[in-house]
């Protein structure tokens, strides 16, 4: 047998070691990003979640002005955490559309009364249909949509204080 062949197992082990060591060091986030970023927002039309706000459809999102599309739910704790940041964005003049995920009108109304309502429109997505269309895998998630109705950015998880300037910047670029 060739001498050099005997080193093959060690080399293979070296590759294994490098792969798992890198995997161990890399933070494990388990975040599945949407592949819809960069593509036009898919066709959908959702009924209004509460009486006070109009329904939401694809056509409402391509108005020539960049907007935010925020997926939330009354049963979601991080959604409470991001509520102040959404209000701050609203005060900065950002148009925020909401999609309530797997929720009831009464619970949504309660949630908004308690933690504030930054949304211009809220659609209700009781069967995660639009969420699946958007390639979203949880709540909360926020999409930045440009004036032509193209998704330009996806923010996974709650919006923290430090995320607000970044989102504003992305919105500005999209405009």
């Amino acid at each position, binding site marked *: 047998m060739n001498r050099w062949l*005997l080193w093959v*197992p060690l080399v293979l082990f070296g590759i294994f*070691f490098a792969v798992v060591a890198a995997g*161990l060091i890399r933070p494990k986030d388990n975040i599945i990003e949407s592949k819809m970023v960069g593509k036009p927002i898919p066709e959908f039309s959702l009924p209004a979640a509460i009486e006070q706000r109009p329904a939401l459809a694809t056509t409402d999102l391509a108005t020539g002005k960049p907007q935010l599309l925020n997926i939330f739910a009354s049963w979601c704790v991080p959604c409470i955490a991001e509520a102040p940041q959404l209000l701050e964005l609203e005060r900065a003049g950002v148009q925020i559309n909401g999609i309530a995920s797997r929720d009831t009108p009464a619970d949504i109304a309660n949630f908004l009364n308690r933690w504030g309502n930054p949304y211009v429109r809220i659609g209700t997505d009781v069967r995660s249909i639009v969420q699946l269309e958007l390639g979203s895998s949880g709540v909360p998630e926020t999409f930045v949509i440009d004036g032509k109705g193209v998704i330009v950015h996806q923010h996974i998880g709650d919006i923290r204080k430090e995320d607000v300037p970044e989102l504003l910047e992305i919105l500005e670029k999209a405009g």
Partner: protein
Amino acid sequence: MIAETGLIALWLAASMALLQFALCAIGLAKGQDELFKAIRPVAIAQGVLVAISFLVLVWLFVRSDMSVKLVVANSVAIKPMLYKISGAWGNHEGSMLLWIAIMGVAGACIGIFERNLKAKTLVATLGAQAFISIGFYAYLLIASNPFERIFPVPADGQGLNPLLQDVGLALHPPTLYIGYVGLSIAFSFAVGAMITRDVGPEFAKAMRPWVLGAWVFLTLGITAGSYWAYYELGWGGWWFWDPVENASLMPWLAATALLHSVTVLATRDGLRAWTLMLAVVAFSMSMIGTFLVRSGVLTSVHAFAVDPERGSFILALLAIYIGGAMALFALRVGSVKEGSQFEPISREGALVANNLLLSAILGIVFIGTLYPLFVEGMSDEMISVGAPYFNLATGPIALILVAIMAAGPLLRWRRDSAKALLNRISIPVFLTAAALFALVLFTTSMSVLPLIGMALAAGIAVASFAPLWKRNLRRTPMHTYGMIIAHFGIAVALVGMASETSFTEEKLVAAKPGDEIMVNDWKIKFHAIEPVAGPNWTALEARVTAQYGDEAIHEIAPQNRMFASAQMQTSEAALLTRWNGQLYVVLGDSDEQGRWQLRIWWKPFVTLIWYGGVLIALGGLLAMIGRLRRAGRQKKQRAYAEAMI
């Protein structure tokens, strides 16, 4: 004071391991034979001390000594005795101590019983064993002392997760660890043999019982784990190709290859380098398996007790032991002759094919399991590799492998002819063809792999008994019976797998009390939902009766359990076993109309999967006992012959 006794015993055991390693190293380097005499007692002392240390830990759990941190974190005073005992290894520190204890005892066993090996190889083996142990001792003593005290002493423990109280889970870790340690011994033998360059039949015969023993426990571990996942998870599946399952399969594949190549080495003095490599790989796979499970580097359904820090420790050990062994292999094996070459059509030819195909399957499972991690590291992409890939890639190879398995034992050593083989195997071949024909004719829903698998199983089942043909049954050695039973077990499991895959009937219904559901020949009636309560849970229990044809009516009660303390919900499947399969009923949620979700499966012959697994393990056990007894007899004969001279 009891905890301190355990800790002192552990320190002493660790120093014995150091001493053992030093004696072996110096002895080998200087060739001082008088040092060798001291090594056996040291190995025995190490085994006794580490066993004491582990028993002390068990005792602390039995006594519920709440001054010990580990007991507080993993036990409560009121708990069934079995779970108090299993609590000792139901955690990271305790399981490490269990591992090292089994390893120490196994080392002591080599010290006491191994008399056939050349002194130098034995010394090198015990040295390698001590070297492995030192790493584990270091970790236990420096980073995760199981005997650490807690102050102030709490009134009671925090308890083991009530869900972890399961007989299967209590016995699963020791079973696997015994298997892993058995492979570590094979690894040490291989390292010892590489150091002394003494690879031959003697070495293979010394290693064989350890490999067989390890293989029996690994087989049992996988079989039990599969059945446990089947009834506990409530999905009716028995193998998911989940990373943690693959982690337990890989050492088994390597051990299966190893135990066959060891036979070639013992009988024909061939496959020397290959056997050494397999011994290194088999233990590597058990370490890698442990690493994958504990580090959380791969996402798994079975992932618990995950801790990246522990992961880096195990990885460091991996690098030292496996990297070291492979470097040694590269440096030393060049001068080990691979041994004689073989005829393709011969017993050893079939065993070589077995080894290469098993290694190919091992390679596929290994690559498939780690590839997603590799992709994540190299790019922004994320991919999943699951059952479709593994079934497609390993299935056909596995079927070729089992076909060779049927023919192999019918071949003569050294040289045989294809014609003679065809003669001997004509009945199984005919049976396979007939089964294939019948299945194609009378079934509609079978896909290719299960179809061929089931047809092959018919032939293999008969072929596995063919080695007994025209033989004196009483004079046939026990290890031959072991092989026959193990090979027959493969056929049995294959039928179960193919049948479950092809003929399972599933029905999802929303049922009101009084509804009747037909699944295959089962008439299932849903009567009512009633609340029931257990020690730490409440449950909704469905009253269901099931009747197969006109047979007696059976009552079954699938549950939806809520654990108050943890706000957890589990579904407890109800199983009804007949000789020809299992009825599997799961209770789901209720809908607005007050109907209840029922998931019902009829799984024909599914139990054969695990009966097959048990038969395989039993075959391994018989082979091991047979080999040990024969070795014992030969030793006596030799002693007698010497005495006569």
